[in-house]
């Protein structure tokens, strides 16, 4: 029953080529730029790949979720409430699309790292870097949906931009955490984006260790999932 809705959303996402191209081009471009910049500071391209794959993935997921603010503002969610589609069905479809668009940036960064920066990993390492980061993007898809449910179409970009900077910079995805002062490094370890990048960092360190990353990201997923569902249920009345 919800298959039709998911198909509809996937078609819309795939058709939005500008969004998809930009979602891949930004982290790939940053990788090319920063891999030269950071080499002098001891951060390896492989290390940078983990951070930027995570950055590209969570940005695409967050943006996709947050764009629901526009549909909500336009009354589209009210319209959908008149169909058999349940709230859970709507949120699952939106979350699935956010996850779908999160995959190309991860693959893009991994490819450019392998092809231009000579990053070499065993198969298990690549699998962890690509699929680990991709799966770890789930809480960001939910965070995007929560932002989309809380913000108006007009102010959503401000909050989205703020979150992007916080999660990207403070999470240590664009600047290595090793170069942070201790307090900021402490803050970084609270953010889910830090742990998403850790999946990639673990993959390239050769140890394959995941540490607390799966537990932290799972906890964020549950908490944000509950928040999104609670918010969606309360939002039935006109805004």
């Amino acid at each position, binding site marked *: *029953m*919800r*298959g*039709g*809705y998911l*198909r*509809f959303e996937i*078609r*819309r996402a795939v*058709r*939005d080529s500008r969004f998809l191209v930009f979602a891949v081009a930004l982290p790939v471009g940053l990788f090319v730029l920063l891999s030269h910049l950071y080499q002098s500071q001891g951060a390896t391209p492989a290390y940078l790949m983990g951070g930027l794959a995570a950055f590209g993935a969570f940005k695409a997921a967050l943006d996709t979720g947050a764009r629901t603010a526009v*549909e909500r503002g*336009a*009354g*589209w969610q*009210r*319209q959908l*409430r*008149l*169909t*058999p*589609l349940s709230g859970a069905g709507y949120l699952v479809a939106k979350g699935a699309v956010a996850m779908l668009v999160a995959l190309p940036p991860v693959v893009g960064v991994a490819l450019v790292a392998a092809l231009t920066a000579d990053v070499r990993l065993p198969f298990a390492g690549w699998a962890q870097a690509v699929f680990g980061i991709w799966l770890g993007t789930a809480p960001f898809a939910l965070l995007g949906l929560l932002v989309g449910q809380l913000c108006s179409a007009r102010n959503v970009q401000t909050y989205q931009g703020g979150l992007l900077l916080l999660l990207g910079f403070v999470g240590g995805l664009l600047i290595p955490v090793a170069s942070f002062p201790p307090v900021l490094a402490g803050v970084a370890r609270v953010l889910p984006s830090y742990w998403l990048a850790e999946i990639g960092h673990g993959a390239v360190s050769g140890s394959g260790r995941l540490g607390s990353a799966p537990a932290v990201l799972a906890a964020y997923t549950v908490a944000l999932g509950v928040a999104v569902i609670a918010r969606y249920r309360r939002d*039935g*009345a*006109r805004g």
Partner: protein
Amino acid sequence: MRPAAPMLAGMERITPHAVALSGLRKSYGDRPAVAGIDLLIAPGEVVALLGPNGAGKSTTVDLLLGLTPPDSGDIALFGQDPRRALAAGLVGAMLQEVTLLEDATVGEILTMIASMHRTPMPVDQALRLAGIGDLARRRAARLSGGQTQRVRLAMALVPDPGLLVLDEPTAAMDVTARREFWHAMGEFAATGRTVLFTTHYLEEAEAHADRVVLMREGTIVADGPVGAVMARVGGRTVTALVPGARPAELLALPGVVDARPAGDGHRVALRCSDSDGALRALLARHPGARDVEIRSASLEEAFVLLTGAGRTGEEVAAR
């Protein structure tokens, strides 16, 4: 297509009402938007819900569709809770202020909605019924206002519902678009479906509804066939230019129940319980009276009188 809803009076007892609202209340903060409504609509009725802005029409529609929970009271659509009735495809609705997803085509949107229902109307049929059979491949961003409204009508039709709820369906449509819209509606209602619509255009209610429900300040102030509601205003109105006559004198004429300046500012409008007697007396006592016009009470007069919407010019005509 479902068979036409049974309309025999004897059947109504065993067929649940299309709409059954009882003791419905909803406040936003301190402001009661719906202050105790009871309403029964039998299958097959076409009902217009009228009232000035802020009378609670849209809140009633939201409550009826389960979009907002009532503070108290019960709602049943075909004997079921709104959410279940919607999920079962028994109800289609056209809401106010819904824009379409600009990046999707009309056909995609309708196919998506149809895919969620167990026994939908074929998308082509819904489009044809809404008078937009040629727009399936059009992107929503490239629709005119009237076309958008009819896409929204097609969206409401696609579940093949027994009850269609339309919240100000023709707002922002031009005259031609309105006429085509009501033509499409008429075809749908003719198959025995139930239709509940709100409108600011009283002539639409008069022309298309079997029954009108007038709301004021969250309550129902009149409910009945159009003719019966108009009759509550009573009799006819005599309008005339009567040089030198004071309103009090005119009000004292036999058969006159109300005297006030007519819309044009020069003449007086006399609402009459007995227009024949009033006219004879008027002409006898005021031989100078001229430009006489007699007409039946209009729904607009009933609306103004019963809803207290004194500013009809603003509330009704301007929309």
